[in-house]
């Protein structure tokens, strides 16, 4: 009986071991997984005051700014920063889903996740492809109708990454081709007015940089630009250009160029330049305290009383000024 049991035990054990062989112990996998930026690295670092004072924009128009009153421009800047973060986060969350799964196919300098059926787009399947050339990585989020040929894959999200800054840090690009998506029958939701969203970033070393470029439907050049920077002192910056704003009464819409900078405790300074429109050439500067109350303002169009408050209350954000 014992011999019989022993005879059966050995092959059973071998079968069990054969099934339990393999795994995901891979250095290359780690390098590919490292070639996607972290969500928090691309997010604009907003001061805590931004969340305390509410992220919703109270008014789309810049109203009368009163010394000691709440800085509507600061709130707008923070709200824009929040929208910026949401946009970036949505893209990176999608990529993170693939990154967190082991690749389906491992080839030399290439990894493929999928194809998987796409629940959000029935009848389509999705895959994520990453390729490596030295320290340069390129990746593609691709879709195709289920059951079609290999050449039917089309790219919804292309990206690049140069991994030379440590854990998931480096320099790269990321884009969302909304026009291509609509061309393949995808519903792009709230983004129908956009053809493309491009993100460029540098997270290798401070000051870090993240830039979003929105290209409107039918446009050949980006219309709207958001940019965010951080420096070692913890200062934050957001620059954005907003065309088509009806800032002052008149027949023309204004194009605003806004540069907002803030300290970690929520104090900030903002410069607004009107590049086009009825108030072209107007320049406005505003400082606020940690409770988003205006402490200083300057208007170049007010010859009688161009400044209010004490300029010394403005925070020192000179570290954000690019070095020549």
């Amino acid at each position, binding site marked *: 009986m014992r011999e019989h049991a022993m005879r059966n035990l050995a092959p059973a054990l071998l079968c069990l071991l054969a099934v339990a062989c393999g795994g995901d*112990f891979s250095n290359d996998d780690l390098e590919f997984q490292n070639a996607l930026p972290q969500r928090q690295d691309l997010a604009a670092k907003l001061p805590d005051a931004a969340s305390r004072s509410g992220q919703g924009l109270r008014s789309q128009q810049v109203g009368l700014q009163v010394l000691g009153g709440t800085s509507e421009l600061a709130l707008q800047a923070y709200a824009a920063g929040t929208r910026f973060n949401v946009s970036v986060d949505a893209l990176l969350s999608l990529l993170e889903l693939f990154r967190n799964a082991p690749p389906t196919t491992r080839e030399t300098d290439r990894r493929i996740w999928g194809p998987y059926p796409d629940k959000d787009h029935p009848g389509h399947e999705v895959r994520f492809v990453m390729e490596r050339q030295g320290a340069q990585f390129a990746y593609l989020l691709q879709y195709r109708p289920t059951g079609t040929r290999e050449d039917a894959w089309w790219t919804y999200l292309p990206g690049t990454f140069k991994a030379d800054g440590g854990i998931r840090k480096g320099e790269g690009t990321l884009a969302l081709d909304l026009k291509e998506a609509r061309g393949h029958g995808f519903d792009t939701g709230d983004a129908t007015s956009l053809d493309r969203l491009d993100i460029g970033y540098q997270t290798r070393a401070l000051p870090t940089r993240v830039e979003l470029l929105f290209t409107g439907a039918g446009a050949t050049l980006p219309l709207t630009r958001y940019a965010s920077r951080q420096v070692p002192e913890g200062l934050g910056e957001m620059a954005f250009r907003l065309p088509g704003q009806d800032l002052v009464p008149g027949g023309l819409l204004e194009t605003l160029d806004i540069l907002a900078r803030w300290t970690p405790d929520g104090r900030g300074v903002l410069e607004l330049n009107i590049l086009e429109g009825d108030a072209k050439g107007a320049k406005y500067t505003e400082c606020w305290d940690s409770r988003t109350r205006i402490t200083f303002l300057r208007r170049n169009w007010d010859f009688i009383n161009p400044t209010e408050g004490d300029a010394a209350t403005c925070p020192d954000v000179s570290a954000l000024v690019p070095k020549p």
Partner: protein
Amino acid sequence: MTGLVPAPVRGLVTKLRASLPGFGLAFALMSTAAQADTLHRFALIAGNDTGGDDTRPLSYARDDARKMHDLLTRLGGVAPSDAKLLLDDDAKDFLTALSDLEQRARAAQTRGERTALFVYYSGHAKDGALRLGDSRLAFDALKRRLADAPVDIRIAILDSCRSGALTRTKGARKAPAFDVESGAARDARGVVILTSSAADEDSQESDALGGSYFSHHLASGLLGDADRSGDGRVTLFEAYSHAYARTVADTADSSAGPQHPTFSYDLAGNGDLVLTDLRASAEGLVVPGGAPAGSYYFVDPGGLVVAELDKTADTERRVALAPGTYRVKRRMSDRLRIGEVEIARGRTTVLEEPRLKDAPFSDDPVKGAARGRDTWWAFGLTGGYQSFFDAATRQSLFLSVPLFGAEAELHDYFRRDWVWGFDAAMGGTRGVLALPTLAGPTYRYSVVNLGTSLTTEWPLGRVAPFVGARLAYLILGRQFEDAAFPDQRFAMVSPGLVAGARLQLSRSVHLTTRGRLQYLQYNVDAQRSLGYWELAALLTYAP
């Protein structure tokens, strides 16, 4: 009784008497019927499987000693309090025990009792000395000690290699079996020495018998097979002649060649000596005279033959089996007859041969290799080190790690000196990634190493070198401290070779050092053939 001796044997004895002057006279003096025994008997029984560095460990010396102790106390008239059983003890213990028995014997003599001392030894002997582990007891010293013992009769039975050297000066005989004759009862005094082999022969053990040939046949004879006179008592000469004939027959075709027991005597008185009284114990088995003649074997539940019986027609025979259940086998030319008997305590069981059933030879209840009988387990703890040969691999993929674990060894399961091992070990270390595009993340690297191995040993005294093969199941993993990277794991079957040496530190404790060379097929990033080595020390305990 001479009428019972086959004519060819009688003729042979006649020739021997003619060719060896003096032998016939002495033989005649001793070949007397067993007398009613009133001797106060003492027994020293020793068994030792080891014999020092230059000898190969025995398997059954201790078992033989146990059997002999059981026989002498159950059937040999030796009170348990007058018997000493030494297992794996050294020469000093042996002499101490002998002194103790001598004191008792002296006290018995003072009371006017006749005394006899049995000394049985199973173990190694070499270069003119018994080898009790690492200690030695010279033949000459033992003989002098026996000669000086304060007893009337001294009987030494030595089951060891070249033990015939002990009897050589006394006329060791590669003689045929003794002719057991009846005669007047006379007292016997002096020294009797039985050895299992001649001075230039090895004594052989048998896995099938679970003991040495000589001790097995001596014991079987003492249980009844040697009682050729049929008087229910087995005398010294009956037992010896039986053991001699069967040992020579069984070893005739062995690779070591035939083994010839020897016998020496120096009896001042004369007369035979009853070694076992088959009726001393009420229980036993009777094979009635009407049962068919032939060879009967009595097999214990472990598949070992504990007694044999060569029955002649129309003679009742008794086998003094201990209480228990036995399978009875009668070998015929074309088949076996097999049955089971229960020996109850205090009762005599009569074998009913018609109740045995025919069976093919393939159903032989005797285990050919005695598997299970001689296997033994050892359990231990191990510590070692594992490292891959390829530098890049051990620096960035599978790191070098210390391993600690537990092992179990099954010795002599498949065959003698083969060891089936089962091992499990774990290890780990900390690492820092250093890849072309990713450097800096720290992680915990871990190894789980499960394996089974089959090795063959070459015992050389206390040291046993070994080589063999091993099949491992290796589970390698790493956990990153940075949550940016997932845990990784790789598992694979890994064949390899193993070699080393086992050192016996004590009877139950062994220290093993060994090295392994293993192959690993890595198939995640690419198909790569990798090799790694392991060095380890293992401390085992054999219960």
